[in-house]
């Protein structure tokens, strides 16, 4: 619930390296993730900054906030492995009707990473 009331990493990033948008307004949920990509000590690409903008129900907002916390600092290879199940577990579970919201978050992150990769081939 804290991730809904006071979500982390809210807003957009100026000049993001990757953006992933999923959902559509007519079904009531739309989520946009922004990422900045840097390098870690081992020289691997990692998520150095991340933020979200979401219009949606409480679960959509909470999962958005949670995935930004989970992905920050992870390598792209690690971040892409985050599943909707992981996010739901971190939030201590979501009701079955809300699982699609956590799908949105995982999909948005994958899209943002894909967007970054397509720009940096």
């Amino acid at each position, binding site marked *: 619930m804290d991730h809904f009331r006071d979500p982390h990493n809210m807003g957009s990033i100026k000049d993001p390296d990757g953006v992933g948008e999923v959902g559509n307004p007519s079904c009531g949920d739309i989520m946009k993730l922004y990422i900045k990509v840097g390098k870690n000590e081992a020289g691997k690409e990692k998520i150095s900054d991340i933020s979200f903008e979401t219009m949606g129900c*409480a679960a959509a907002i909470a999962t958005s906030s949670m995935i930004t916390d989970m992905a920050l600092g992870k390598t792209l290879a690690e971040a892409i492995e985050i599943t909707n199940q992981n996010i739901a577990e971190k939030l201590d579970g979501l009701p079955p009707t809300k699982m699609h919201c956590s799908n949105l978050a995982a999909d948005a992150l994958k899209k943002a990473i894909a967007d970054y990769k397509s720009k940096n081939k």
Partner: protein
Amino acid sequence: MSRQDAPPIYLDHAATTPVDPEVFATMKPYFTEHYGNPASIHTVGQKAIIAVDEAREQVADFLGCKTGEIIFTSGATESNNFVLKGVLAAAKIQKPHIITSTIEHPCILDTCQHLEKRGVEVTYLPVDKEGVLNTKSVQEAIKENTVLVTIIYANNEIGTIQPIAEIGEIIKKANQERKNKIIFHTDAVQAIQYLDCNVKKLGVDLLSLSGHKFYGPKGVGVLFVKEGTLIEKIQHGGHQEYNKRAGTLNVPGIVGLGKATELTSKNRVADSKKQQKLRDLLINSILKNIPDSHLNGSNKHRLPNNANIRFDKIEGESIMLHLDFEGIAVSTGSACTSGTLEPSHVLLAIGVAKEQAHGSIRFTLGKDTSEADIKKVLEVLPPIVKKLRQMSPLK
């Protein structure tokens, strides 16, 4: 979930109402003291039947009908199922036809869809932007095989009031030249507290009510069945309720519902006036102070306690939950709560776009709502909307 210690500000009276203390006091003895079965002939049973008879008189007085025309049920969902299934079971024609509207309660719409699968023909009449049915469209929809017209008196989401008496006139005229008479039903669940429910004035053959929407208990309702109306029972068993609805009567519930109708007819005018004033304050202040907010439904043909407002570019459930954190209970017709992604069928029926329908909040006031309650909403709502809009990718 942390909440403030103050009692909640309850603005969801269309969902349910608290039992009035006077109603509760009337019900109490019928749990442990006068627990008899009203179908029993002995003295213990007779205490119960006397109480049921009295409640039946209270309801009959309220609706302006005979006591023999009141059937107690478990609530409006049962009453409405009874209407649709019972009228069809009694109809003696090949492919019966029902006329209803696109903004009925799900217990009508869902039952109609169920019946359609069994070969019944259903016409869902559209409503205009305010949610009002064109009476002419009812006239035009009547066919040779029409057996039933069922129209909600006042809508549960947007509070729009339908011209039931006018429709009653149309059906009465149509019936003069017909062999198979059309039966007219209205779901008056939301209307009961605020509108005239005299069945003769409305010209209805059937009318549904639910106890818990007007400070009575849950689990009890009424179906008014005009004498001579062709309807078959759908619940079989004993001979209760003039052999129309089997099952031991919910005595405390019925006693409570009876008392609630009595209180409602006493307080209706004053309560309506008071709530409408506060409701107007709420609507006008929100529309004035929160940009891109709009009233759903009609200004004029509206229940005095209903405000349904949509906020562009944000989602209703989030607004509802933030209000809940502030101790304010409202409701949303939003899809997320019902487990589907479809927004409210009522808002879509009045032409609200899907993306806008998701951002709607329903406030329904009650007899104990105070000006301080409304002021509190007006204080906490704007920052909530602002915050959610900042978070929204739609700018």
